[in-house]
C-alpha cells in the first residue's frame, strides 16, 4: 500500500499533469484513495498506468452515497503487480447528470463491470461499446441498488394469513 506520504506524492504528480483532477486524498487502514473529478477519470487512469505503473484494473464498482450528495460513486481499484500495491480511485456524480466517460477503450476489463454499474445505479458511461443492462432483464425499469429503491420481496406467510396472502399457495 502506498503510505500516506507516497499517496501525497502520487497526488502531487497527478496535479502537475492534470491540474484540477484531484479533489482529495484519503489514507484509511493502510490503503490510499484518490478522489478525482469525473471529467478527468480516463486521463487520470492513463496517467496512473503510464507514469506510475498501476497496470491492472481489478474492479470497477458503484456505490450509492445517499443521502450525501453527489450521490452516485464509481470506484476503480488499481493494482500494481510489480510493487504489490493497491490504490483506489473514486469519482462521484449526481443522479441528475450521471454521465461519466467510459474507460473501456483503454481497459477492456471494465466492459461488463461498467455495464453492471449502469444497470444497478444508473451511471451512464459515454463511449462504452455496448451499454445495456447486464443482470436485470433488458426492459426492467429502475436501478435496483440505489438506496431508495425498495428491496421488494414477498410477504412472509404465517398461519393466520397464508390463505389470504398471497393466495397462490393454496
Amino acid at each position: 500500500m502506498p503510505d500516506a506520504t507516497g499517496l501525497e506524492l502520487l497526488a502531487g504528480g497527478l496535479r502537475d499533469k492534470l491540474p484540477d483532477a484531484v479533489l482529495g486524498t484519503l489514507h484509511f487502514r493502510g490503503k490510499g484513495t484518490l478522489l478525482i473529478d469525473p471529467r478527468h477519470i480516463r486521463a487520470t487512469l492513463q496517467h496512473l498506468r503510464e507514469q506510475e505503473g498501476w497496470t491492472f484494473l481489478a474492479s470497477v464498482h458503484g456505490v450509492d452515497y445517499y443521502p450525501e450528495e453527489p450521490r452516485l460513486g464509481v470506484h476503480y481499484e488499481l493494482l500494481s503487480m510489480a510493487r504489490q500495491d493497491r490504490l483506489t480511485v473514486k469519482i462521484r456524480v449526481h443522479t441528475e447528470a450521471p454521465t461519466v466517460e467510459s474507460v473501456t477503450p483503454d481497459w477492456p476489463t471494465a466492459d461488463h463491470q461498467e455495464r453492471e454499474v449502469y444497470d444497478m445505479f444508473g451511471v451512464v458511461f459515454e463511449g462504452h461499446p455496448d451499454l445495456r443492462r447486464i443482470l436485470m432483464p433488458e426492459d426492467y425499469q429502475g436501478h435496483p441498488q440505489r438506496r431508495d429503491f425498495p428491496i421488494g420481496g414477498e410477504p412472509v406467510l404465517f398461519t393466520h394469513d397464508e390463505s389470504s396472502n398471497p393466495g397462490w399457495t393454496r
Partner: protein
Amino acid sequence: MDAMSDITTTGADPAAGKSAYRRMEDSVDLSELQHPVGDLDTELLTLNMGPHHPATHGVLRLLVQLDGEIVRDIKPIIGYVHTGIEKTAEDKSYWKVIPVVERMDYLSYFFNAYAYCGAVETLLDLEVPKRAQYLRVIHMELNRIMSHLVWLGTSALDVGAMSMFWYCFREREQILDLFEQSTGQRMHTRYFQVGGVMEDIPDGWIENVRKFTAKMPERVGQYRALLNKNEILLQRLRGVCTLDEETLFGLGVTGPLLRAAGNPWDLRKAMPYSSYEDFDFQVPVGTEGDNYDRYVVRVQEMLESVKIIDQALDNLPEGPTITGDRKIALPPRHELATSMEALIHHFKLVTEGFRVPPGEVYFPCEAPRGELACFVRSDGSSKPARVHMRDPSFVNLQATAPMCKDAYIADLIATLAMLDPVLGGIDR
C-alpha cells in the same frame, strides 16, 4: 492420406505445442469467409446456447455467431440467477450478512465469507487470533480442493470422460464430511465469523483431515494417469483456445487462467493474508496458456493445497478461535450465567449487532477462480451501507470471446469448462 496416419500416432509436436491434426486445420485459410457485405452465400448463423443447456455450467446464455462450425463471435448474456445479494446485504446487520454473502460463488463459500469478514475486520481494525487464522486457512484450502474437484468432474464430463465425475465427487464427499464434522453443514457453513471462526474444531477432526490428505496425492495421481496422456483429452485441450498473457491482463483475468498463461500472480504469495506467509508451497504456472495448461495448473493446485493443509495441521497453535472483543464476538455461553456484561453484550449483538466505524474497504483474497474481493462501505450504523463482491468469474467471463474466436463449437465447450465460470458469482 498422410495426415490420417499422423492422427493415429501421438501427433503431439512439443515444438509447436500442437498436434498434426491441429496444424492441418490451421493451414486452412478461412479469411475470405469473413462476413462480406451483400453476399448471401456466406452468412453468419447466430445460435443461442442456454440459459438451459447441459454444458454451460449454470445458467449462462451465449449468443454464438457461427460460420459453419467455427465461432466468430460470442456474446455472453448473464443475469439469469441474479439474486440481489448485495442489496439484501444492505438490509441485514453485519453478522447476518455472512450467510447471505456465502451463497454468491456457491463453490467457494469459505472464500466469500472470508473476503467479507476480512473487510469488516479491517474496518473494525480487529486482530484475528492465530489459531483462528490457521483454521481459516485449513478450511479455505479444503474448499479450494473441493472446488477444483467439482471443476474437474464436470469439465471431464463435458469433454467426454464421464467416469471422472464419480471419482471427483467421491473425494468431494469426503471433504464435505470434514466440513460437516467441524462446522455442522456441508455447504454454506457460516463458519467464518467477524473476528475468527465460529467454534473450535472437535476431537478427531485433525485425524480425519490427515487421513484425507494422506490419500489425496495418490488420488490426484490416479486422475492424472487417466487424463494427462489421454489422446482424446490432449487433442481437445492442447493448443486449443490459447490467449496470450497481455490480453488476459488487460481483461482483468486472475487466478489459474492468468497463471496458465505464465503470470505467476497469486495473492497468497504476493500479498499474503491470514498467515499464508507461514506456509511453504509453490504456485503452479503454465507456459502456453492453452486449455491444457489451465487443466494442469488446477490439478497441481490441488496438490499444493494438500501441502498447505498438512503444514497448517502440524503447526496449529493453541489459543482462542475468535477475538476476545465482546463488542464484536458473542461471549461464550457459560459466561452468560455469571457475568452481567456478557449478558448485555450477547443481547446487543444478537438484536442490533455491532456497529462499525464509517469507512470503505476493499479486501481481496485468492479464490479458486481468481481474485475475490469484498468492498464494504460502512456508515457507522449496525448495517453495512454497501457490500460488493468483486467476483473473479464475472471478470474472467469477458475472456470467453477472445479465447474462442475462430475455434470450433466443441472447442468452445471445452474452453468454457476450462474457464470454470460459476454463475452464482457472476450474477450475484
